[in-house]
């Protein structure tokens, strides 16, 4: 009787303890995830590009060439197609007036055909509207819109937003039929920030009076550069006599010239890009605003926005993933801590550091105390990763408990 009572007590005590510890670990995991939600401590995890050309018709050839050149640059520096949203009217390459059918050039030497085999246009023709543009930015689509047309960014994304076309004082003209005002753009970006859709945003505008388009921005974390000030026009670079129209704009031409010299691993900073624009060559003043942007420009590499550099480091031992985020992108490598006997504090640091090394963690003896408890339950969650094994173990444990209790009570 006593034995049974003792065993029963042990079982109930065990079950209480089990429930308690389960609740605690769940709490701990929640806490750990909440510690990532403040933006200042977000990690930069991926790069997106939204490239918009707002004009159509044959005489706006150069806007199409601008956007396609940026598309090629951004792809070359590493951003893949699934993270680029390209909005073009796309009526140049197959236009009857094009004497080089299916080819789009941005230079009269015709060295580079921008319209190759793998240009993926997400919004083409009459789909480039103000409504679709704002839906892309804010993420509020109809349910039937496919994933390739959505901007699936999160709070660790750096987004490059490039817009070109005909613009004016505080507006940008879309396809000769509607306009977007600078206040609408500012509000859309604020919505993005509230929903945590970007960590940092770079807006690049190549139109007439471009600086007025981002004059109303008020969300932190946004950096903007335009090709001309209010009252100035932006000019095209040169005319191609064969094609018969101007093929590229000056601002984009000099931007591309800057990027021609780069490859993926260069550390050129944004300030060197912004300072490379010469007002005499541009025939307008390239103006940028950085009052909403916290980091100093000379410490931000251009590949933070224009490329997507993913450092892969080779480790000797296999590793289990700790949490959902497996890859950290950074141009700098930090030495991983591979010491197996570190205490729990350093284990927690692993989560917030930039290193990408995970180590295998062996379960140690359980000591009473909070830290130890967390470590213990991290090990438990580690085992929870393997769901099949967990289910099997659980069923086994339940069967054992049932057998023992029935044997004890009978």
């Amino acid at each position, binding site marked *: 009787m006593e034995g049974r009572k003792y065993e029963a007590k042990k079982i109930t005590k065990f079950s209480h303890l089990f429930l308690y510890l389960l609740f605690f670990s769940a709490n701990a995991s929640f806490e750990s995830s909440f510690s990532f939600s403040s933006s200042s401590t977000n990690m930069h995890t991926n790069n997106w590009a939204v490239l918009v050309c707002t004009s159509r*018709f*044959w*005489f706006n050839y150069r806007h199409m060439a601008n956007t396609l050149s940026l598309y090629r640059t951004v792809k070359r520096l590493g951003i893949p197609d699934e993270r680029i949203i390209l909005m073009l009217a796309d009526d140049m390459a197959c*236009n*009857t*007036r*094009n*004497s*080089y*059918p299916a080819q789009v050039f941005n230079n009269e030497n015709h060295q580079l055909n921008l319209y190759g085999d793998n240009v993926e246009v997400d919004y083409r023709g009459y789909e480039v509207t103000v409504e679709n543009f704002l839906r892309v930015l804010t993420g509020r689509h109809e349910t039937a819109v496919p994933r390739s047309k959505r901007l699936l960014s999160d709070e660790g994304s750096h987004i490059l937003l490039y817009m070109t076309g005909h613009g004016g004082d505080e507006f940008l003209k879309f396809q000769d039929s509607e306009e977007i005002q600078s206040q609408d753009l500012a509000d859309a970006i604020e919505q993005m920030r509230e929903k945590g859709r970007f960590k940092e945003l770079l807006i690049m505008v190549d139109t007439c009076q471009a600086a007025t388009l981002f004059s109303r921005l008020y969300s932190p974390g946004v950096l903007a550069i335009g090709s001309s000030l209010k009252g100035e026009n932006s000019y095209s670079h040169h005319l191609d006599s064969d094609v*018969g*129209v101007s093929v590229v704009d000056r601002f984009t031409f000099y931007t591309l010239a800057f990027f021609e010299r780069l490859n993926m691993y260069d550390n050129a900073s944004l300030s060197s890009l912004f300072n490379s624009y010469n007002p005499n060559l541009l025939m307008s003043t390239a103006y940028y605003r950085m009052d909403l942007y916290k980091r100093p420009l000379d410490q931000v590499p251009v590949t933070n926005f224009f490329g997507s550099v993913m450092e892969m480091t080779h480790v000797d031992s296999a590793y289990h993933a700790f949490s959902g985020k497996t890859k950290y992108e950074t141009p700098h490598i930090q030495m991983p801590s591979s010491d197996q006997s570190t205490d729990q504090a350093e284990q927690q640091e692993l989560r917030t550091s930039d290193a990408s090394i995970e180590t295998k963690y062996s379960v140690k003896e359980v000591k009473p105390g909070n830290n130890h408890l967390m470590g213990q339950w991290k090990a438990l969650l580690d085992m929870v990763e393997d769901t099949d094994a967990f289910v099997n173990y659980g069923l086994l444990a339940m069967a054992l408990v049932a057998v023992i209790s029935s044997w004890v009570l009978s």
Partner: protein
Amino acid sequence: MAETGADVYYHSFYSRKKQFHPMSFFMGAPMEDNNNHSSTHAVNSVGIIRAPHGDGKEAIVLVSPYNSDKMELSDALSVGLAYSIFCLLGRAAWLAKDIVWLAADSKFGEYASVAEWLKQYHDPVFIGKKLNFHPVDGDIQFVRGISEDFKRAGTMAAAIVFKVLETSQGTGTDNVNIYAESSNGQMPNLDLINIVHYLAVHRHGLHVEVGKLSSLLNSLWLKMVGKFLEGVSNIVGSLNPKWRFALPVLDYVEGTAVLASSVYHQALGVPTGPHGAFRDYQIDAITLEISPRVSLNSEMARSSFLVRVGRLIEGIVRSVNNLLEKFHQSFFLYFLTSPSKFVSVGVYMIPFGLLVMPLPILAAALYSGKASEALVQKSDPFNTQKSYKASQENPFPSVGSWKWIHAAKLVFAVHLWATIISVLPSLIYQASCTNTTTNFLIWIALSIPSFFFFYWISLSSYFHSNDAGWAILKALTIGAASIGLGLMSIINFATAQIGAIFLVPMCLMVHPLRQIYRGAGLGELLHMVSNVVLGLIGFPPASFILLKGWSQGFEEVNMGDLWVWVENLWSWNSATYLYLLLVHLPCWVLCLIVLLHP
């Protein structure tokens, strides 16, 4: 043409006799008249290249007129040039609009052939009977299967008419002459002329000209005016360099000559080339006359000439091809002062406005009687007693009663007379085909008695009015003149402008000679003389003779020229004819009546 793979067809048409149908001023085109055929006909050949990827809604038209009766080297060159361009365009990769090539047979005139084709294109008439058609080269048609069905290519975006002239200009480069004026002073969009000028001068080194009045080039007084303006601008420029406004003297003289020619041709209302037929259907068109630098008898000279000019026309076609809509960004109302400079409507409206503005004001002032009373008193100093008494008895003799109706009746009668004599030439033309001088004399002979007949009808009531009655007449004349000028300025601005220059001073200054005569003094003398002079100039035949004599020498002028000139006007349905006979002539007659008022 069929070898290039284009759609080819023949269009045959009959010549149309010149007829003067009074209603044709107001209707679009004269009605089809089956009884008016002559025995001969002419054949236009038309080829259409369909753009391989285009949507076939728009077309560009190239016209090369040639005379099938007597073919010369220049005609052959025009057609050859057009054919080579046509072949090139058939292979072009950038074609977005269809190309139509009309080889127009100018047996009955270049304009007639183009006009017939356009009429069949836009307003076709389907006659029941089949036309009796024998092609010039009888067997070619059956060999190549060229049809007679009329094929179309959509709306026309622009049209270029070009021909090669044999004579060389001696300017050292090939010369391109642009003719732009169409009927009733309409002009094509300025962008078309700009394209031709830019391509010709900057890309191909040709020399571009527009028509100019060569007589003005040598005039001395124009040079003096130019020098004077240059002097003034130099003085002003020494104060502030930005205020310099004058051109060098030679440019000024040449610009004035071109401007005068442009205004004159627009005012006439007669198209200056076959492109005028296009403008009636709201299609921008110009005529290019290309004259080579050296004579084209050698093979090499011909091929290099063809290459140069062919590139120019290909460039024009490509520019129009790249457009999305018809030309609409530039001016439609302008005068040219050189191939690259123009005076736009906002500027040239101002002098006309200034000229016409005093007319209604003076008419109102005269009618209210204040001006007339002052004039009566001023011109009658020796009869102050009489006039004072008259004014006491009847202070405002011309207001408040129905006295104005008599003057109005006279004005109406004069206008009715003018309408009748404007219809007279058609009857004369149909009645007799004698030579021009006799026609003109017959016209005058018929018009003068009818005038007196009308005058006598309305005279009896008019003479009841007293001394100041002529003021009412003048007021009504000025009113009629301002209405006529205003209406004309909408239809053909250049005519209204020139007409205002002649009409307004005459109307403003007219005053009964006898009343001026009563007063002595220099002012009155000048007034009298100016009235007489203006009265003389105001008479259209007189001014015509004067101008012609001044430009060409007085020996060559005869009465027949005037008849020819007027016939030219009405055969082209020009509104200038109506203006001259319905506005200018009645006002002149009424001014004469006031001038000779007893």
